[in-house]
């Protein structure tokens, strides 16, 4: 077993464990930390696929900015232990079947893919042509995908303005 394979298995297991912990933990801060674990493990997987920039941005933005704000808000509001209710009816009749269906779909397509490519060992390098370097990525963003990119930035700007307006109303 190569070193890359070991890292892949460890990070995959950590990501799954984190996802389970996120749902099962009753303390909000523990849930948030589990989500951070998932994000960091995913970032390592991106790194192994050769997408170092995406990996760094994943940690910087999701784990380092968004989740820090989550944890901050949980701490600030001093949210207590979450209360468990029985599974809601919608979740039971709609959510659960959909989850099972999605899982089956994923297992099917992945197994077919591996049957075609013939090797699980190449798990670290199956993602096809990934824009590896930052230059290629930025060229893509600012040529082919410039409209979605700019629209997203306008969306974020509107969100910031909305937050400002809401905060200001409360103050006066």
């Amino acid at each position: 077993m190569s070193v890359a394979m070991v890292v892949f298995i460890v990070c995959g297991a950590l990501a799954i464990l984190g996802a389970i912990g996120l749902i099962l933990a009753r303390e909000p801060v523990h849930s948030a930390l589990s989500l951070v674990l998932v994000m960091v493990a995913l970032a390592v997987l991106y790194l192994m696929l050769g997408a170092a920039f995406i990996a760094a941005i994943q940690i910087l933005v999701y784990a380092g900015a968004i989740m820090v704000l989550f944890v901050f808000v949980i701490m600030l509001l001093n949210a207590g232990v979450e209360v468990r209710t029985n599974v809601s009816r919608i979740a039971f009749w709609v959510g659960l079947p959909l989850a099972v269906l999605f899982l089956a779909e994923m297992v099917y397509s992945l197994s077919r893919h591996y049957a075609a490519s013939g090797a699980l060992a190449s798990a670290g390098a199956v993602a096809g042509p990934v824009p590896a370097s930052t230059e290629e990525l930025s060229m893509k963003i600012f040529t082919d995908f410039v409209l979605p990119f700019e629209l997203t930035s306008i969306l974020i700007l509107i969100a910031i303005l909305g937050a400002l307006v809401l905060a200001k109303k409360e103050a006066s």
Partner: protein
Amino acid sequence: MEFVTQHSFLVVSLIKIAIVLFVVMTALAYLTWFERKVVARIQSRWGPYWVGPHGLLQPLADGIKFLFKEDVVPPTADKVAYLLAPFLALALALTTLALIPIGPASIGVLGQQTQLVISHSPVALILLFAISSIGVYGVALAGWSSNSKYPLLGGLRSSAQMISYEVSLTLSVVGVLLLAGSFDFYNIVDHQAGHWYHFFPRWEIIPQFLGFICYLTAAIAETNRVPFDLPEAETELVAGFHTEYSAFKFAMFFMAEYANMITVSCLATLLFLGGWLSFFPSYENPGWRWQLYLPAAGLIIGGIALIIGGLRSVQWNAKAVFPVLGIVCIGVGYLCTLTGPSHPVAEVIQGPFWFIGKVFFLLFFYVWARGTLPRFRYDQLMSFGWKFLLPLSLINLVGTSIFVVFGWHP
């Protein structure tokens, strides 16, 4: 032995990690000594003096004391997060150092050419910011998990402060990135090679002076140091987020703070002060080869100073130890000159010599600031960060991009 040849990259990396860890841990310990000595000198005191000559064994004594103290865990603490916090803080603070290159040369180990950095990545700068951005969790978790008033307030304050100043810190660096056009430290430093008018080094601190000021200020706040050490404002918050931590867990937070100091100083050196580049024209130019003797000269002068200082000291142990140390220094320095300037060793240590010198200067600046400036008030700190530092770094960013777009940059 077969394993070593097969996995030479792994083995070499492990060796490098061990060396860096040892050096950094020692440096951390003596940084505390250095800080106490310099602050003492600023305040006309002696500082640590009695444990070893001039208190040189004080860090060791402190470390042993921390190891053997009772480790009190508050009964109401959230155990997992409480234990995780100091590990997270120290581990992340040390991990960032893996991305810092200290010299241009590559050396052959185990039949493999290896660079003077643990991990060479094309996006090293973003990775470094990414790792240090999750360092906030150490502080936030410590504050929350202690389940106590002052740590919670301290944790909230310091995470708010770190989030706020991280924005300015990252933006102040973008100017350098625009000029260098790369996230790779090697490319960034190479871009700073050369001199204006054959005298002024082309370091980014000259075109990016505004960015440098923003970076330095934000970096002090980011590492929770005076004058922005609000999380540890003892008059208001006892000891901030680490109030409930004792023994070695407290020491881990302490070490993390100093490791972060070293990291931001290294980063400032790489980005603004030309990294490992010499202040003078390259030693490859005729007439500048004497620079290769500089490290040896430094050692010999330091050795002479140690001998004189030791003999004049009133402490008997300083009288005994310092002259011996001085003679060792002179001996090593003399050995360096014996090999001659054309020897590869002289060229390899040239990069680390300048790099460590600059980092040391920045660390001294940190301590100097601590000894000089009073602490900010919390609301002043926040409004300074958001209303002054952030606009300033944005102005720097916009100005630099205009220069780059019109091709005016030097």
